[in-house]
């Protein structure tokens, strides 16, 4: 049950299942949730230590949720300057798929791999509950087997998920189909409760121009297990694993 916080260097190419490298910063706390989700989908997952210069060879880099460096200064700000991030940025720019969830999304924004900023929730309070997401644009392989227009129920758990970008950036994101997930009201849910953090245009997740870097605030990894209250994100992970294996 101890969190596997030490990097594991195993050889890529053993077996054919894809391999995800999950980056662990001091204060990361959803790395096990993420590892479980990938392993349930048939992938291999290893932890990568923030202090290392290189991400182990892998098919997908994942920045998981948590409070890297205690969220001091700004969420993700210090993590973006961890030694390993140089390599993450280089590999992202070279086209390797990168998924950042919650604190990982914040870190991708701070590392300038994604535009905009994540502000304090409009309620000024931390929020943990289920939300509904609509897949606005399928981006392979990172949105997996989810279908465009499909609505899934997944949890959020964050204090700073209020996505903000200037008008020009928003127009580009919209025009280029890079707003991937939006918050929508679930069945019978009042509109006012759909968006948990006040994000601009109900944005929950976006991709970079090349479409290989996806950042999202909600936690699809916590909607994949038989004892979790939603299995709606199973196709997301299954599709990523199929595509990258």
């Amino acid at each position: 049950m101890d969190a596997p916080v030490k990097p594991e260097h195993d050889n890529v190419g053993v077996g054919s299942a894809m391999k995800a490298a999950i980056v662990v910063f001091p204060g990361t706390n959803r790395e096990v949730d993420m590892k479980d989700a990938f392993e349930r989908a048939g992938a291999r997952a290893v932890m990568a230590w923030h202090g290392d210069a290189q991400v182990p060879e892998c098919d997908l880099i994942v920045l998981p949720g948590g409070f890297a460096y205690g969220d001091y200064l700004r969420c993700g700000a210090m993590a973006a300057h961890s030694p390993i991030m140089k390599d993450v940025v280089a590999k992202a720019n070279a086209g390797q798929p990168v998924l950042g969830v919650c604190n990982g999304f914040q870190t991708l924004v701070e590392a300038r791999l994604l535009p905009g900023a994540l502000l304090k929730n409009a309620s000024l309070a931390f929020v943990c509950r289920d939300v509904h997401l609509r897949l606005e644009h399928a981006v392979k392989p990172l949105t997996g087997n989810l279908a465009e227009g499909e609505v899934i129920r997944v949890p959020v758990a964050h204090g700073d998920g209020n996505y903000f970008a200037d008008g020009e950036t928003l127009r580009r994101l919209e025009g280029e189909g890079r707003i991937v997930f939006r918050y929508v009201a679930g069945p019978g849910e009042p509109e006012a409760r759909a968006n948990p953090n006040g994000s601009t245009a109900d944005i929950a997740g976006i991709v970079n121009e090349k479409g290989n870097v996806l950042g999202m605030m909600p936690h699809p990894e916590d909607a994949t297990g038989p004892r979790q209250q939603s299995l709606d994100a199973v196709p997301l992970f299954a599709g990523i694993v199929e595509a990258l294996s």
Partner: protein
Amino acid sequence: MPINQSDLDEVALSRAEYEAIVDRLGREPNPLELGLFGSLWSEHCGYKHSKPLLRTLPGESDRMLVSPGAENAGVVDIGDGLAAVFKMESHNHPSFIEPHQGAATGVGGIMRDVFTMGARPVANLNVLRFGAPDHPKTRYLVGGVVSGIGSYGNCMGVPTVGGQTSFHASYNGNNLVNAMCVGIAPADRIFYAAAGAIGAPVVYVGSKTGRDGIHGASMASAEFNEDTEEKRPTVQVGDPFTEKLLLEACLELMATNSIIGIQDMGAAGLTCSSVEMADKGNAGMDLDLDAVPQREAGMSAYELMLSESQERMLMVLKPEAEARARAIFEKWELDFAVVGRITDTGRLIVRKDGKVQADLPVRPLSEEAPLYHRPWNETPQRPTIAAADVPAPNSINDALLTLIGSADLSSRRWIFEQYDHLVMGRTVQRPGGDAAVIEVPDRPGKGLAVTTDCTPRYCQADPFEGGKQAVAEAFRNLSAVGARPLATTDCLNFGNPERADVMGTFVGAIKGLGEACSALDMPIVSGNVSLYNETNGRAVQPSPQIGAIGLIGDLDRTAQIGFGGTQHTVVMIGDGIGHLGASLYLREVAGREEGAPPPVDLAAERRHGDFVRGEIEAGRITCCHDISDGGLLVALAEMALASGIGASLAMPHENLPAHAFWFGEDQGRYVVAVEGDGAALQDAANRAGVPTLVLGLTGGDALTVDGASPISLGTLRETFEGWLPRYMAGEPA
């Protein structure tokens, strides 16, 4: 030099205690030595008022791996080579003075108590008791306490899955914040406070020491008065990020067979941890305060010894393991300093600036704290109120809406949505049900159920029955999800024990707890006492809080409170006389706080609980809710709201006034909803000697009671969900 009273007040010691110290030392203590005695002999550390009584509680069980009180937290065997490590602790006084930091550091402290024993925390719970909603300070305290708990637990990545919140004017000057943590450890790798071999290094790890929290233990052992605000500097400041690093570093080191003993620095900081370790090993300790990592310059020996700076641990290492341990803590960017050695002198010798600052025998400090058998008055019995003497409401519907929209019964969503209750991905039942359920890490299908319980207004009315009820309700909440109750922890919050009436409530409650724990086979494996919850002579309601854990062998066989479908038969398990004394109906609808509380028949409690659990384990019940505050109809409304399915219900007999039937708080009862007509369930219950009563059928989108006009689920939901968010947004209570 004669000591003056103000010096003694400063360290919360009495003149007689001072004389006992002089007697044992054979000389007058110096100011530092007096401070050390003051902290260790405080109620908070020494349990001087409560220990004789606590010894009467049942703690023995073959499931227990550590005897109660001997260590930080209780350790219970949960099979498959694992142990559950858990404890509840109060942080009442600091949370009233500085609610955010006070509550946050309460959560941090209880988690350290758990991981210092080698367990990874997997669930947090908390019990919050606030003053009346219309008291000017209450809103501020609720906001600060909730944000403080969230800030700490969320950052640690430990889900906060349950607890209790209530409001009553008796807490106006003293709110209660009791935090509970449950961890899981390998059963054969539990860590303790211990001293080890002579010469072994004493190592300090974690945060640096600052001037915060000095005299916290003494503060928590005295009443509040008008000057309480001035005590703000005695409240510690929490840094959950450092604690997260400390958790990971400690667990990493614990996997390497390097540690002889480990103890977190909680109340009375370095003083308490060093004395406890030396005492456990029948050894002595030399401490060099110059080696202690310090946040500010120029700290005195007194400040260094009594600081309650958070996120610190003291360890005794195997001598050969020092380098390995240092590397791990450096990797996690935490301070690591050898601050002393184990000796065979039996004395604690504290040096600073090359000079001996204190030289005391360990045993009197730790084990010879004075014990007081305080005089106490039996709490007078209140009369039992007959249902017929309690006025009926305008209508049952109105009374239901009043109750579920009241401060104590309305939804706690505003609170639990500020806590990350899903991190770790193993939360099977979220907050809002009976007990929260998590899946045990690395043991798929095995569940741990956790709950906190106490009904202070019952304890006020009758401490003995109230004490029994706290345990019985925990038993019921665990049974209602199909869990086998394993063990309990307690957190006993009372007023000033030097007053005989208050002491009487303490004595009565402990007797009740003990009786119920024996009858329901739920030994108390750890605990905490918080006395002096009193301001200007007004004490809080007696609040002997119970935390309990239970085991679910197969998570496919469990139950939750929402109705499972339409046309299911709603059946009450257990029966009652419509007991309205000390009930929420009496308080919220009739405006009276009086009468004896419902009596608890422990044999019936056990029979009913065992029956319900058996049916759940057999897969025959999947929807179950215990009946508690507000009675039967409140339980049914919660079941309807949890599922979005209504029900049509009727009182099946005319033996009682309708309001007593629907809102009475008789104990030992559950509501279940089953497919079909419920006959098989009733037969099985008959055979087990358990009474049942069919109440109606599920279905529709409204609750219809005794043929009155239906209450739509929309109205119910708005009423239930509305109160707390509106209140916190500033609307008058």
